[in-house]
């Protein structure tokens, strides 16, 4: 299996940043990407996960702290900052990433319905053996992460 191309990573990153730009009307900035070499990557309070099979295998996650999601909801004029809506929000960002991937890679990139993990142990155990690639997504004073584990 070939290594991830810059264009493939760009598709996932654009999905995440597009959500902030359109829904919150404030663009997010992309930080310096890095490979995780010391075990499973750490995650924030809420994580939206999409499973990928077909041409590639693995998972892509968007993980964000509660504080960031709360501000994002407020920017979207949503006053209900309940647990349900926090989970919904990371799920929606993951959904947007997934939609972008379907558009750019076609149907040979099989993408699962997003699932959401909340407050579970602080680390994400990726499927398969691919090394997780982490791209920080910075918005206002908050920082989320896009974790790409594909082989």
């Amino acid at each position: 299996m070939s290594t991830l191309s810059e264009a493939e990573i760009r598709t996932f990153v654009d999905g995440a940043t597009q959500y902030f730009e359109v829904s919150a009307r404030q663009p997010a900035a992309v930080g310096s990407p890095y490979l995780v070499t010391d075990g499973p990557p750490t995650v924030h309070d809420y994580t939206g996960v999409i499973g990928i099979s077909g041409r590639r295998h693995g998972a892509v996650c968007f993980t964000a702290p509660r504080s960031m999601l709360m501000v994002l909801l407020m920017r979207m004029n949503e006053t209900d900052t309940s647990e349900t809506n926090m989970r919904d929000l990371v799920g929606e960002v993951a959904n947007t990433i997934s939609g972008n991937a379907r558009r750019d890679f076609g149907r040979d990139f099989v993408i699962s319905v997003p699932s959401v993990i909340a407050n579970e142990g602080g680390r994400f155990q990726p499927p398969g053996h691919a090394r997780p690639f982490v791209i920080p997504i910075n918005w206002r004073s908050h920082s989320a992460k896009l974790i790409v584990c594909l082989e």
Partner: protein
Amino acid sequence: MNAVAPLKLMIVDDSNIIRRRIERSQQIERLRVVGSAGNGREALELFARTDPDVVTMDLTMPEMDGIECVEQIVARKPEVRILVVSALADKATAVEAIAKGANGFLCKPFTDRQLNDALAELLQDT
């Protein structure tokens, strides 16, 4: 002068945020929200109870997905107007939804203006 008859809107999406957002942001004067559902099965039950004229429909949902739900709603009421609201941004998905009977397609994420423009276009000839 003839008053324009109100139209009943049903919102279908598994995301609570999106359901609330559409309800809050839609500004088409003729539309009255009659209810919202979190999956295709709930949507069919709500449809039977409220007989909506307009539906916003997510595609990726548990229990019954949006494409199947569009097909079943159109079979029950062919004149209904359905706006698919989905993050699945590929052309093949949009074509499939339209082929099953949807009348418009709006990609997530969307702005309030994009939502209202899409709804206005959907209702242009009603």
